[in-house]
């Protein structure tokens, strides 16, 4: 457990008096891509927000890098974990400015970015593929470009842990692959990623671990192959899963339950 970046023990959380998460246990190891999969309303986003400290938990314990979540000061936490939530504003700012916001936890009282901050921003924009559109207004970008710009901000935050809530939603298939490949690239650079995906085939292809959720609880956490062969995804989503093996990879797809 020493290499656990994120650990949840018996965590309950929700909105108002209603608990969505029911005693969730989860351990995310360093350099993993863990995908939360489950039907609508099962608590995936709630879990992501709770683990990232955006939503308070009513019981249980959350550890990030071995330290209790509540013991982190907000800026200290923002240097360890970045989150891209589902709902985002689109202010009329330039892509470069947005990416620079990722450096907010590192800025001093006068909020003046240092040369090091600008270097991180440049690197993040290159990595996210938005360097060429740095001066474009966020509002003029397509959904995919906007998603990449927000990813550049999260990358500029330079955290070992990254939470992504449905990073591919509303994007065309090509852009979805671009984003998922970027996620893999980030993993290859040593980051740990916890994300929510609705597309099961993508989850099985791009994750190292899949946590299957239902009604606020985690049913299992397994590598993609195992979770697919267990039939759990099929029973939770009421679908039939198919897997075709090619020389290089497994190709998954799902059809309605017979």
């Amino acid at each position: 457990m020493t290499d656990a970046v994120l650990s949840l023990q018996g965590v309950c959380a929700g909105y108002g008096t209603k608990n969505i998460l029911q005693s969730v246990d989860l351990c995310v190891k360093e350099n993993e891509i863990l995908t939360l999969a489950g039907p609508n309303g099962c608590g995936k986003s709630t879990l992501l927000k709770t683990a990232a400290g955006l939503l308070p938990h009513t019981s249980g314990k959350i550890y990030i890098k071995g330290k209790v979540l509540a013991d982190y000061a907000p800026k200290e936490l923002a240097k360890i974990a970045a989150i891209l939530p589902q709902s985002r504003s689109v202010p009329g700012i330039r892509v470069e400015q947005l990416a620079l916001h990722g450096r907010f936890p590192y800025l001093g009282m006068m909020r003046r970015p240092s040369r090091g901050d600008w270097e991180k921003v440049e690197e993040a924009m290159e990595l996210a593929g938005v360097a060429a559109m740095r001066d474009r207004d966020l509002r003029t970008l397509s959904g995919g470009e906007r998603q990449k710009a927000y990813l550049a901000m999260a990358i500029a935050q330079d955290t070992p842990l990254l939470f992504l809530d449905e990073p591919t939603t509303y994007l065309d298939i090509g852009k979805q692959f671009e984003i998922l490949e970027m996620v893999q690239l980030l993993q290859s650079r040593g980051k740990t990623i916890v994300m929510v995906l609705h597309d099961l085939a993508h989850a099985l292809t791009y994750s190292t671990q899949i946590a299957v959720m239902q009604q606020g609880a985690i049913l299992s956490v397994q590598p993609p192959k195992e979770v697919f062969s267990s039939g759990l995804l099929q029973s939770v989503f009421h679908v039939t899963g198919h897997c075709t093996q090619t020389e290089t990879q497994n190709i998954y797809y799902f059809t309605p339950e017979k």
Partner: protein
Amino acid sequence: MKSWRRKGIYFAVCLCILLVLAICLSLFTGSSSLSMTQLLEQLRTSDTTGTAYRIFVYVRLPRTLAAIAAGAALAVSGAIIQAVLNNSLASPNIIGVNSGAGFCALLAASLFPAATMLVPVAAFFGALATSLFIYALAAKTGASRMTLVLAGVAIGSILSAGMDVLMILFPDDVIGATGFLVGSFSGVTMTGLQPAAILIAIGLVLALVCGYDLNVLALGEEIASGLGMRVARMRFVLIAISALLAGAAVSFAGLLGFIGLMVPHICRRFLGADNRVVLPCAMLLGAIFALVCDALGKFLFAPFEIPVGILLALLGGPFFLFLLLKGGRGRMYD
């Protein structure tokens, strides 16, 4: 130099030039003509009994400074409140903040007529209470942007009724009653302006310092929290700054409307949404706007003088209707 930066600098330089021209316009227009040679002579010889000197020092100068202070304060207050509520229809007068400030200012002036320093402080607390009420309404009930505007109208009506009651109960003590309700810079004295001007100066400095944080807040509550911002605290600080500015302006200029609505819109139209640029430009443009409208009020129907609040309402009303009819849901950010 990058085009957006060049654009910002050009805009700021133009505003500075316009501000100087507007100050001259304000200083040298009025019901009585002011001879420059006479004035310069009296200033040089420190002839404090000369007519030109007296008009300049006791009438024109306080009025000009009042217009600068109120215009800058209300424009920046509006820019902040629009960004915090993510509502482009919001401004201190629309959501009832001015009325809150006005009611408390009148209450303080009625109950403690001798304590002039108390008026801007009371106005600040009135503005703060109204702002926090509106914000709580938005946060707790998830009220739509239009509902907030309507809630502001309702609050404004209640507080206006309160102000009317005060004027009936304390007819002698209430500060320049009619001018106060409409909004005007005539009759402002240096002594009356001083405490409010200090509060405005503090508020403007704080607002400019918070420009970057306001940008981060504009990304949405969850992203701002994820970036390490203490969102609730920051929102409170920003609302307090906005209330300080609106309250202080109302305390001497009365219920001036629409500067806080129009000026931030114009700045954002030309400069985008970066509050580090929008706030200082709104400050300059707000001052220019108030100076020019006040000067227009002085000579448009001369020898009669139209209070600046009436001109602002004439301009601001159609502007507000335009924003309503433009079809957007009033969001600043999609």
